[in-house]
């Protein structure tokens, strides 16, 4: 029988609680792939967060260094696998800058069109997955799927593949657009706009969605710059930093479009900035269709095997998640000497811990979702 000592008083120590670690991922519906984070929680509050990456590491950079310039195309699709064309764009630009290859005018327009379609694809996926994170039972996911399938059909038509088109080539494109393609893209734009409006009605106008996201985990401009954020996460803080405007590449200087920026840098702003960006992309595609010249799509002067003497360059593009930069170095031969990818998801993800600590477990999930990471790009 336990005898309580006379002088035994209830002290604060009797109410001590113990922190608990929760392992989220790599198989977890909210981690968007094979990302793992170990949350230390005090009840429902996150007190520490330790991200683990590398489950999808395929050695992209090393693979590229061991393949012919044209053979590597397929690997780069698989970095940001939600927007393969945007990655191809950066890779091709790096090779072209390294070897000073010309790209025909028409090819540039088609490239930009495809990249913007990819941007819409990626943002649609974000709306869908983010809606599911916030808890709308897959409805947002299916909404995203409708437009994504249509865009994928268009990709398949030009390249034969849906997710990993491998449509771009250093110096141009694999082949010209099929017959009547431009007119059908105009129809597709109408469908995309309808899809975006549906999303706006489903999520943006939803009271619970707004309650969950507004004011959550705000990031100031200084913090965003310090942490190396880019893309919508940076622009949501109010900084109009978009490489398509700041340092225009390809034909972006000939196109008119706005850079949507947020005000507070919270989760809701990140969402709304992406919503507006997807809308701007439809405008860009429309202009591309209007201005598109006739002509070749692949530089005919290029040799069968690309050989680049020596040199190095860094090319940065506005990928779908942020600044997608490729550093390339050649020392002769048909292979690059060094390839390095500056992937936006990886840099954005590095700020996860600072954003998550001090929030509820449920919020940690949607903060992760709002960064819009894609693991192929994080793990390379």
């Amino acid at each position, binding site marked *: 029988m336990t005898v309580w000592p006379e002088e035994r008083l209830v002290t604060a120590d009797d109410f001590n609680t113990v922190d608990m670690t929760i392992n989220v991922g790599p198989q977890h519906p909210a981690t968007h792939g094979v990302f793992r984070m170990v949350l230390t929680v005090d009840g429902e509050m996150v007190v520490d967060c330790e991200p683990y990456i590398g489950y999808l590491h395929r050695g992209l950079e090393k693979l590229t260094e061991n393949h012919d310039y044209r053979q590597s195309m397929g690997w780069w699709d698989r970095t940001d696998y939600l927007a393969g064309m945007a990655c191809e764009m950066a890779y091709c630009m790096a090779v072209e800058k390294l070897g000073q290859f010309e790209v025909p005018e028409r090819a540039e327009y088609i490239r930009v069109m495809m990249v913007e379609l990819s941007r819409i694809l990626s943002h649609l996926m974000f709306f869908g997955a983010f809606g599911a994170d916030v808890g*709308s039972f897959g409805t947002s996911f299916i909404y995203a799927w409708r437009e994504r399938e249509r865009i994928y059909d268009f990709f398949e038509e030009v390249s034969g593949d849906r997710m990993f088109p491998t449509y771009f080539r250093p110096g141009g494109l694999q082949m010209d657009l099929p017959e009547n393609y431009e007119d059908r893209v105009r129809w597709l734009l109408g469908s995309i706009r309808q899809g975006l409006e549906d999303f706006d009605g489903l999520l*943006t106008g939803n*009271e*619970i969605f707004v309650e969950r996201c507004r004011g959550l985990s705000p990031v100031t401009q200084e913090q965003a710059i310090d942490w190396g954020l880019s893309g919508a996460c940076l622009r949501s803080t109010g900084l*109009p930093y978009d490489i398509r405007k700041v340092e225009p590449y390809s034909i972006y200087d000939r196109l008119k479009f706005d850079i*949507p920026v947020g*005000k507070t840098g919270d989760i809701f702003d990140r969402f709304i900035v992406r919503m507006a960006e997807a809308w701007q992309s439809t405008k860009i595609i429309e202009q591309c269709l209007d201005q598109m010249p006739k002509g070749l799509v692949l530089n005919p002067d290029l040799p069968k095997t690309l050989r680049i003497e020596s040199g190095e360059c860094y090319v940065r593009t506005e990928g779908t998640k942020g600044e997608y930069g490729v550093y390339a170095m050649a020392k002769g031969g048909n292979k690059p000497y060094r390839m390095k990818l500056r992937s936006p998801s990886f840099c954005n993800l590095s700020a996860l811990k600072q954003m998550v600590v001090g929030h509820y477990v449920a919020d940690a999930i949607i903060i992760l979702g709002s960064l819009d990471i894609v693991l192929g790009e994080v793990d390379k």
Partner: protein
Amino acid sequence: MLFADPLFGLPSWVDAIIRVVIVVMVMTIVVVYLTVGERWVVARFQQRLGPRKTGPGGILQGFADALKLVTKEDIRPTNADRWVFELAPYATFIPVLMTLMVLPFAKDWGVRNLALGLFYVFAILGLNIVGIMMAGLGSGNKYALLGGVRAAAQMISYEIPLVISLLCVVMITGADMGGGVGTLNLNVIAALQEDRPYIVLQPLAFLIFFTAMLSELHRAPFDIPVAESEIVGGYFVEYSGIRWSMFQLTEYASMWGFSVFGSVVFLGGWAWPFGVDAHWTVQLGTTLVKSLAFIIAIMWMRVTVPRLRIDQLMNFSWKVLLELSFVQLIVNGFILLYGWPQELLALTSGIGAVVLIALIIRHSTAKASKGLVGTYRTLGSTPQ
């Protein structure tokens, strides 16, 4: 009067057993069709087809699912507390089953007509949480633990507004019966609504009841204990096979039970609009249609709205619903005490319902951001 005569003049206990067996069989079939029905409804909302292949139009899909679940391996984690883990599904299910025993499906159709039926329903349903806590604690899984604790916190918070909103109705039954304190007999409550359902007199109480019901059932937007995207199913994350299907059975059976209960208390049950003397098939059909309306509304909520956070959920219960339900109770008391006309009940409660809805959507940007023009309005400057 009601439920008075045993079937075919059999002894009372034989009659009871027959009625229980009928209710259990009907419940099983209802649950099987609710699972597949939910898939159809959700598919419809999500622009898909849903299950269409098993049997004509997919009507056998529910049985196929059940068969699959029964034949699956029953896995118990090594660090689970054996008896707690294995008994939890039954501890969750039995209270729900017991609740169904007092629900009046038609004038003469129900297992037992208790004088304290409404009280009994809540006394028994409160035990449901024991099973959920058992599952949460016994699984030896942190997600399950979080889910169980969340479920307990949520249940305790929402039980109070739920019961008070029902008391508002019970008060009115007193006036309808010509004075007195009213009745807790569900059959009498239904019969008293022959002329008009109580939702007309008590829209606010109905809204509170419906909200709290969603919370008790762990359905969206209050599905915090089972949040798939956070804690991957919550308290039943470690269950598989037949035990997991017991939890599903509980979920859908309680959804159906609550729907019948809500339609009895607020929508006039079997009595409105066809009257207490209508044929029993008509009365059964009325109950069925009303409960289906409830269920479809619940499914609609599930596919449309995101999930609340635990603190928002608690705030909503303790700072909004509880206050409004008490105000409703007090206002009802004054009106009934001084014998003012019942139209006043409808008016005050209607105002309360408008206030509640306004409170819910007060932060909403729904108007501001409808359409993408509004999306831009919420953004900062858009430099060229």
